[in-house]
């Protein structure tokens, strides 16, 4: 079996994936410098690990069109990789924080009437907790909207807001691959943004209700490998967002679970379909 791995840089995750994949067949590492399309790449499956969400999306589409299945698939990355599309899917299956989306400054200014303050403004794409803003009052809302107006990317002017969930100094990140719950961690932080990429501390999380909600969140999409961000709200667990191109080195380190192997095993299974 020929397993492709498309990538931007060799993070610990890519090195782990490559090592595991070698146990299942021949591994073809495809850096962005090596890829041009249209071109037939002789692969049974490709694991997409490009850092840029949009590069990952296009590479998946181009590979799928030439008959190579990808993990994750173009469709999953499209739906899970956009906060609005993902919320629409998730809300049918699991509790999510109350949310609103609007398309103009004027309509965005009406949102606190419905959601109240504090609000969290999020870009519809991206991660590592970047460009998140906690908005406590009308002045802050005006400031955020003013800043977004002058950003070049038109996607920043799709205004996605969530109610602010007052977390107990931590949130939960879980991993579900091919419908199977893999593991979960708590991410502790004194800051309201808990990403380990922003210095959050990781500890294992072993809870039945986390397993349950994680699998339901995965079922909202029904395929692939997803990292799921969960909040502990006052009335129970809420799924904050999902991530279709997961980093997992901290989760693997603190739980001892071989997430890379699970991902590769799933890719092998996809290749055999």
């Amino acid at each position, binding site marked *: 079996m020929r397993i492709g791995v498309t990538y931007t840089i*060799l993070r610990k995750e890519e090195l782990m994936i490559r090592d595991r994949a070698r146990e299942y067949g021949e591994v073809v590492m495809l*850096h962005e410098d090596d890829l041009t399309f249209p071109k037939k790449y002789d692969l049974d499956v490709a694991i997409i690990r490009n*850092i840029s969400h949009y590069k990952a999306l296009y590479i998946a589409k181009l590979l799928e069109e030439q008959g190579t299945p990808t993990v994750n698939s173009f469709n999953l990355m499209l739906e899970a990789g956009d906060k609005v599309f993902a919320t629409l899917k998730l809300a049918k299956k699991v509790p999510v924080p109350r949310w609103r989306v609007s398309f103009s400054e004027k309509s965005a200014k009406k949102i606190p009437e419905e959601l109240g303050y504090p609000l969290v403004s999020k870009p519809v794409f*991206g991660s590592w907790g970047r460009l998140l803003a906690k908005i406590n009052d009308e002045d802050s809302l005006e400031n955020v909207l003013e800043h977004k107006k002058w950003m070049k990317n038109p996607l920043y002017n799709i205004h996605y807001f969530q109610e602010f969930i007052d977390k107990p100094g931590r949130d939960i990140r879980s991993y579900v691959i091919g419908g199977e719950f893999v593991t979960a961690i708590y991410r502790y932080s004194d800051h309201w943004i808990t990403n380990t990429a922003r210095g959050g501390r990781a500890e294992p999380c072993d809870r039945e209700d986390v397993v349950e909600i994680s699998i339901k969140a995965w079922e909202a999409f029904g395929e692939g490998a997803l990292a799921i961000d969960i909040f502990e709200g006052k009335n129970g667990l809420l799924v904050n967002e999902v991530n279709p*191109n997961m980093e997992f080195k901290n989760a693997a380190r603190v739980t001892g679970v071989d997430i890379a192997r699970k991902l590769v095993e799933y890719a092998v299974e996809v290749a055999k379909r």
Partner: protein
Amino acid sequence: MPKIVCPVCGGEFEVESVELHEVLECPVCGVELEVVSLNPLVVEEVPEVEEDWGE
């Protein structure tokens, strides 16, 4: 062992072996560095401009 000079802090450190595009952490300042060339050995700070998917 290849010696690397961190382009961010100027700190020097040695590595056993490196691969092209591998990410290293500078033990002096903690910044992440990408190996962009093997011969000569060149490292650059990992770009943070792409919309990434993190942990």
